[in-house]
């Protein structure tokens, strides 16, 4: 688990794979959503086009240092998160930079981007940005709880905090997956997952269809491009954690892609059938439904 210079090109390779996969998957899911709604939907390469467009826009303004740094924090958070977690089990090289820390590092590093983003958007001086941030933070703070409980349940179950070891413990058939050995933890975690993916019914933070609210609306051009990049990476990085903890991890890239896609689809499917929650409703919802499951999983493990 030590550092090796060769890890750097492999980490970059992982990054490259995930960025591309993320952009395609986002477009694919958007397209599926459109088709379900009897619309044509975007082309599959739309995200690439947006990205290139945004990176090349010349006119840009800044509101100050933190505004400038916000997207940087955000993307650093996404990239870091991805790289602190091993992507493929059994591959020394695709375990990325996970030698720097264990599960706890990954969990806490999620906040790095969030914090930077929040600070950056806040400096825009736009009240809606602040409102969006507070909503997001509040919702996440409640949604994180079942996740933390589930993670802890898993850590207790396997008596380790190392992601690699957790995955190792799930090898040898899907009956060894945490999904089956500790279903309550997985249930709690998946509920939390819904909340953290910013999809309906927990999307009041972004609320794209209504008032222009939330951080992304305050950014444009290359800032937005950075954030779009992150939007390709970050959900995947998070799902990788779920995959590793609960669904046996992945040993080869196809397995990786499949599992990530399926996990992502869970949130999409739920979002299609549920109306949107207000923030306090979602806080209560997590506390009333998800947290008890998490507690139960901890007590029973």
């Amino acid at each position, binding site marked *: 688990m030590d550092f090796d210079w060769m890890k750097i090109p492999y980490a970059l390779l992982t990054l490259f794979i995930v960025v591309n996969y993320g952009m395609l998957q986002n477009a694919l899911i958007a397209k599926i959503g459109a088709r379900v709604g009897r619309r044509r939907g975007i082309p599959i390469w739309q995200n690439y086009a947006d990205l290139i467009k945004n990176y090349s826009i010349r006119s840009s303004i800044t509101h100050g*240092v933190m505004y400038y740094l916000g997207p940087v924090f955000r993307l650093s958070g996404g990239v870091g998160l991805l790289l602190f977690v091993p992507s493929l089990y059994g591959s020394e090289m695709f375990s990325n930079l996970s030698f720097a820390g264990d599960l706890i590092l990954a969990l806490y590093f999620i906040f790095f981007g969030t914090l930077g983003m929040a*600070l950056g958007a806040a400096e825009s*001086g736009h009240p809606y940005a602040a409102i969006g941030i507070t909503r997001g933070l509040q919702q996440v703070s409640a949604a994180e709880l079942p996740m933390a409980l589930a993670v802890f349940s898993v850590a*207790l179950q396997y008596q380790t905090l190392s992601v690699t070891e957790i995955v190792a413990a799930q090898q040898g058939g899907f009956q060894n997956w945490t999904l089956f050995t500790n279903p309550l933890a997985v249930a709690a975690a998946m509920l939390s997952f819904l909340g953290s993916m910013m999809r309906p019914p927990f999307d009041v933070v972004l609320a794209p269809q209504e008032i222009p609210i939330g951080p992304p609306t305050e950014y444009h051009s290359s800032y937005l491009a*950075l954030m779009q990049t992150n939007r390709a990476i970050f959900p995947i990085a998070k799902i990788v954690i779920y995959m590793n903890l609960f669904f046996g991890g992945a040993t080869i890239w196809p397995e990786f892609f499949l599992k990530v896609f399926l996990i992502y689809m869970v949130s999409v499917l739920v979002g299609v059938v549920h109306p949107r929650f207000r923030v306090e409703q979602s806080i209560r919802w997590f506390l009333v439904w998800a947290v008890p499951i998490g507690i139960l999983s901890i007590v029973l493990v």
Partner: protein
Amino acid sequence: MVSPLVLIAAPLAGAFLLGLVRCPRAALAVTLATLGLAAAAAGWWVWQLGWAGAEAVEVFTAGTPPPFAIALRMGLPEAALTLVITLTGLLSALHMQDNLAETGHRAMAVLLVAVMAYCGIVLTRDLFNLFVFFELAAIATAGLILLSADARALGAGFKYLVVSQVISALLLIGIIFTYHATGTLYLDGIAAAAAKPALAFFLVFIAIAAELKPFPANGWALDVYESSHPAFSALISAAAGAASLYAADKLLTVGGPAWLPAATAIGIVTFVAGNLLALPQGNDRRLLGYSSVAQIGLVLAVAGQRDVLGEHYHFVAFGLLASHAVAKAGLFWLSGMVAERGLAAWAALRARPPLIFAFATFVAMLAGLPPFPGFYAKWELVRVLAAEGRLVLLGLILFGALLEAGYLFRWFGFALKREPSGEGLACAPSKGIPVLAAVLAAWGLAWQWGDASAQANLLLGLPLLFALAFVLLDWLPAWVKNTLAIAGLAAWFALTLGQYDPLRLIFAVIMLAGGAVTLLASYHAHGRRIGFYPSAMLMYAGLAQLILAADTFSFFAAWEILTVGSYFLILRGRHSEPHALSYIVFSLGGAFLILAGFAVAADGAASFAVADLATLAAPVAPWVFLMLAIGFMTKTASIGLHVWLPGAHAEAETDVSPMVSGILLKAGLFGLAVLLLAMGRQKLGGIDLTLAMLWIGAASALLGNLMAIFQEDAKRLLAYSSIGQMGYALFGLAMMNHLGWLMALMFVINHYIYKSMLFLAVGGVAKRTGTRDMYRMGGLINLMPLSFISVLVGIIAMSGVPPLSGFGGRWIFYNALLTAESRLPMILIFFSGPIAFLYLFRLIHTIFLGQLKDEHRRVKEAPFWLMVPQMIYVVLLIAFALVPGVALRQVDGHLGGLLPAGGLSWDGLTITSDFGYWNPVAIMVIVGIIFTTLFLWLVFVNRRAQKVKQFNIVFAAERPFRPETTHFAWNFFAPYRKALGFLVQPVATGFWNGISGGLHAGADFTRRLYTGNAQTYAVHLLVFVVAVHLFMTGM
């Protein structure tokens, strides 16, 4: 050889002589000279008996030995008491010399006779002679009451006469039947008599007890205290009180052990009731009256415990009595200088800082704080009572003392913080000298009691002396004193460096070295900053001694010293008066629990090492643990006991907040650490107490954080956050495993750094913007960039986001949790983490980001000296994030010896636990590289970005009108309030308010007993007599 009779003959001769002197000034001179002579004689005897090794003498009058003639005795107690009496008389005469001169020679004669009578009460060994002296004292009192300028004094005097008539009738009946039964009036003869007349002696006893103004038969005394000339009240309180107590003591010696329970009961009821009834008083002299009554009750209760106190009896009783006499006389004299009678009128004292020092001295002395005699006395008393199992009495004494401290410190707060009004202060030298003398006496006695104590003399402690030196140096400019203070802290740290084990070293570094760093911020203050340095250094002295304390006595003394020092410090804040009060009341309540815990633990041993707590076994051990733990948790503001903290920390001065938050709170943690190390797990009634602590810690963490997110006031937010942070640390300690402790210590260090930094930063911002309300700020990032950086670094560290040092704490924390046995409290802790993130974001957002307000457009960066420590902290945080091992490794190794299982391994740069691993340097490097790369990339693609004002925005298709309406800051987390607001209902505040309100209401109701009618008072007296008789025959 001075005959003790001088004490009687000289004042008498002086009194008779005054009839011949016409000129008031000459008469005054005669009076003062006579009192001076008497005082000299008493002083001579004190010297002879106390130091020169003389034996107590019995003086026979009429050349005939007792029991056939009256005999007097002069021993050390008598000498000391007569010294108190004559000195009080002398100084009171000096204080009221104008009134005396105006009233003429008769008043002076009466004063002289009063002093003579008090001396006689002390000296005589004859029962009837005692009666005569009491009558003399009563008549003289009735006369001296008239010296008052208060027209109501006449009524008070009459009430007094009515009651003393009843008392003397009972006394006479008792005396004659005692004589009839024993055939003698000589006290020792009565004591030796075979058949003791119980009922007759009861009458004598109850009459003398009534002279001590027992509750409820004391309404007359209070009226006298309220309306008399303050100098005379000083005399009644100090001299007459002392004399009557000694008379009661003599009677108890005569009566034997059978009478002790009654004395105790009367005394303790009076003590508690007197202090309770003092709570709603608004008149300073009446309040002092209640306090006097209470104190004398306490000494009587102690006299009732002489059977168990044994050889310590005099040390304890005289310690309490001396504290009472000196402090009460001093306070009454001070009252004579203050023009108006409301408690708030004492604010006039602020015109003369030495008088404030005097006031503080007296309050501390009365409250029994170190290093005054009452402190040593209380220690011994509690120790013995606990050893004897008299716990109810012990509890009542501590409860009464807490009430007393409550109203005394409230009063002190008024004096320091209220607006002085009206006429102010009468400051003649003749009024100042007695106060000065009382102050000197107070410190002299402090020395003396320390010297005589079986424990260490606190006034020999270098840190305390250093702190006290600042009282004398207070005329220096602040920067000189600040330099001295920093140098002192550093020097003491260097001096004692070798004496700390790694655990203590951590605390020492924070409290001493950290204290010095925090003090850097104090350079920003101009002028002399009177009072700041004595208070601050008192707190640091307490902290310094606390870490080094090996035995329970020095531990407790240090604890009280740091408490009182920090109280003075907190009180300096502009609006901190009520908060400082609740701080000191809670702290002293906690301290008393600690005291009781130590006493129970010691089980009578004169000296008890803190480490010996480990030797305790059930059934004592869990109770000791419980008391100590609650005491320490008061200091860490665990939930339920936290209500003092937000106000105290938020309202303190800018550079005080980091001291009391970053440093002082650690004292509580230190106490808990020491306690848990020594005692480990304790079970009480099947409940694992460490488990209870675990729950309390978790609840503190959750609720503290939750309350923090709803604050609009930045410093309050930080204060509530401290409650949460201390909850984490408590949780860690209570886990009782290696990693839990490591995490707690990590919190200790981190919390010091980031909380000090944040308080300083927020304080600097508040100083510049003139508000602490976050919604009034906003957009300050460009104007105060350095403050912004320190807040940013602070919140990253505090929220535990990698790569800064807070993450290390979290990492250890999660690892520790994996080893914890109980999982449910963990859930609370889990929840509080993200919530902390919310309030931290709010802090930085609403102050530095968002829209800049118009009125703040010209705000400058915080003062230089406030920034210096902040920048040091920034460097420290980053350094500590990179190499946490510098501190942690030592502690880890040390803890390995105490809690061996589950330590960390330090493998190169990677830190490994049983469960996971962590490489701080790698994290820092990786994050740094990613961040820098992306940043450079952004700069590259975005190099022509144009800077625009924050206000240059459009939303909802309109341009905003004013920045105020565009800054989203107020009620920032409204949905949280909707969802979880019920959790932050001020239940604890309501509970404590209810207790305090209940006490006040009870006191207010009870004091209506004192109708002001002389006959009612006489009825009270008779009811008291009958009730005590029933109590005694019922026993």
